[in-house]
């Protein structure tokens, strides 16, 4: 069958239709969220997995991107990073509102042109900076805004897990590497909490079959400093993150491994820790919160907590970190925007 766009979807007469592009790891929590919100879901991917994944979420597979674009109200781009630019431009040209996974693109110019194309087409574009929707991170930022730590002074952010198994992640020309693909989450969070960044000094260590680590020091315009660690480790490594936010009047500390809500031990236990992605199999799904906020904005609701411009700023920090790691000198994010 050829799916058709739900006429009057935005008026709520029929369930709106979302077209998910890509059927890899990150597509699944998105699909689950759209399904939970009652959306009609189309899915298209070029890796041949769309039909199989569609079955798990009550979705309909589309043979082509054009077919998907013609029949949906919202496009949700979950394809690998190197494919984002082309898909988002096509979605904008088709007049569809867009959700695009992070990083928006591999370089500043591509991401900026995606933002421009969506603006010119009069469609909304929101990025999958999902860390802003993890309850601990959202609550920490709210606490900082409420003055609980005074003025942010020194932030420490850590994010590590098993290295992604899909080969394209390991190729910096396709994924951007760990700083652009993974550490961008904490670059965004650092900027969200402590403001614009004026200088980045970073190191890339390990790799070539060994665990890969990114270290970065950010100097924020307001004077705060942020220390970041990103790790793509051994296959058996459990995903974990932590943050420590020290300010003039207080300190907030959190680690995902400090106080697990639920643990299993013994021969019948399964590892619920997750490897590449955090375990969100129970409780509030941050992907669900994120997509619900975007969906509300598409329907004319409030502006989401994160904009495409925020994601571009985080990408600029990540690009500056990568350049610093290559050159051995501190780099301003403004250097990577040309």
């Amino acid at each position, binding site marked *: 069958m050829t799916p058709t766009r739900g006429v009057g979807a935005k008026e709520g007469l029929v369930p709106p239709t979302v077209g998910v592009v890509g059927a890899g790891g990150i597509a699944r929590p998105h699909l689950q969220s759209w399904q939970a919100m009652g959306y009609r879901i189309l899915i298209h991917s070029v890796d041949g997995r769309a039909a199989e994944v569609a079955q798990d979420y009550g979705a309909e597979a589309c043979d082509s991107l054009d077919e998907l674009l013609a029949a949906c109200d919202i496009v949700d781009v979950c394809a690998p990073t190197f494919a984002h630019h082309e898909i988002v431009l096509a979605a904008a040209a088709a007049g569809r509102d867009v959700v695009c996974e992070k990083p928006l693109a591999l370089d500043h110019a591509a991401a900026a042109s995606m933002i421009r194309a969506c603006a010119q087409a009069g469609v909304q574009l929101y990025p999958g900076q999902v860390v802003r929707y993890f309850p601990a991170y959202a609550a920490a930022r709210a606490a900082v805004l409420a003055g609980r730590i005074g003025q942010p002074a*020194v932030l420490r952010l850590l994010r590590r897990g098993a290295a992604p198994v899909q080969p394209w992640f390991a190729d910096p020309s396709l994924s951007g590497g760990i700083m652009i693909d993974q550490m961008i989450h904490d670059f965004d969070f650092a900027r969200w909490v402590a403001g614009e960044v004026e200088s980045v000094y970073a*190191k890339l260590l390990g790799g070539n079959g*060994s665990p890969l680590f990114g*270290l970065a020091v950010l*100097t924020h315009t307001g*004077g705060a400093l942020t220390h970041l*660690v990103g790790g793509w480790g051994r296959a058996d490594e459990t995903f974990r993150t932590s943050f420590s936010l020290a300010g003039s009047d207080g300190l907030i500390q959190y680690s995902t491994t400090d106080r697990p809500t639920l643990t299993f031990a013994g021969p019948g236990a399964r590892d619920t820790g997750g490897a590449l992605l955090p375990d969100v199999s129970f409780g509030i799904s941050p992907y669900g919160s994120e997509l619900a906020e975007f969906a509300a904005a598409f329907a004319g609701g409030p502006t989401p907590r994160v904009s495409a411009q925020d994601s571009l700023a985080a990408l600029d920090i990540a690009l500056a970190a990568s350049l610093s790691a290559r050159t051995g*000198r501190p780099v301003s994010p403004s250097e990577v925007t040309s």
Partner: protein
Amino acid sequence: MSGATTRRIGDGRALKVGLLSFAHVHAAGYAGLLQARPDIDLLVADPEAGGAPSGELRGSAMADGLGVDLVDSYDELFDWGPDAVVVCAETSRHRPLVEWAAAAGVHVLCEKPLATSLVDARAMIEACTAGGVQLMTAYPVRFHPGFRALRDQVRSGALGKVFAATGTNNGQAPIASRRWFVDAELAGGGSLMDHTVHLADLLDDLLGSPAQSVYAQVNNIVHGDEVDVETGGLVVVTYQDGTVATIDCSWSAPRSYPAWGGLTLAVEAEHASCSFDAFADRFDVFDDRAGRLSWTDFGPDLDSLMLEEFLSCVRTGRAVQPDGEVGYRTLEIVRAAYHSAATNAPVTLG
């Protein structure tokens, strides 16, 4: 001076140890530990106590509280004929005291950092060499059994190549008890001077590789309304073997923190991720009278382990570690960090 009695243990004479100044926050701890040892005679001089801000416990008030013998001047203390001294003066005042001890043939345990300038640190090392006395830098954390186990694992090669290390030495700013810690002249700076060197020492011991370049950023947000020196700082050290280590030296523990602070070191190696917490041996105490959470520490007494090694080296003539050269190398990292922070560029050492 009041009578310092000489106790004799076995066939060995008690060692005469002088404590030079109560200025450092660790001085009271050393005094208590030394006083409790039957093989040590302790004598203290704190002649510059009068220059300390009012309200700080120094001089005879402190000596009385600790039950230790005090003399009025360093002259009197050196006239007593100590075998060794522990230098706890303000950092910029270390050099003349160490040179004095060296000239008198007295072994030295000197608080960290060794000096505020590399010139002073080198002069102290040379004076001790010329005087034929040992110079130990007071880095107690490397005596932690947990760190020793980590170091043994790294050195055995079992972990493979070490790629990266991230250390934190965060604490409350030592403003209330010892104001000179935030005096740029006496302390040589703020948190960067105070809290970089312990981790730099552990990394020196762990990696056995010289530092090659240093990048640092500092700020003055925590206690920014009270002090001029930096209170926040991040240091990135690249070693000649390619390992990169970061040191967070910030005085970022708020007044309501459950303890003075802490020290941690995570090591990422080819075959293992390791983490060391020097003050992990503690429990939570919810104390209604204190009105907040506090931690009770039941871990190894690092100062005691360090003193034991120093005194043993003095008795046997075995070479001390960490010595003055480690003190110098770690100060080199700090000085480079200040230069880097001022120029916003990495600084090459050597």
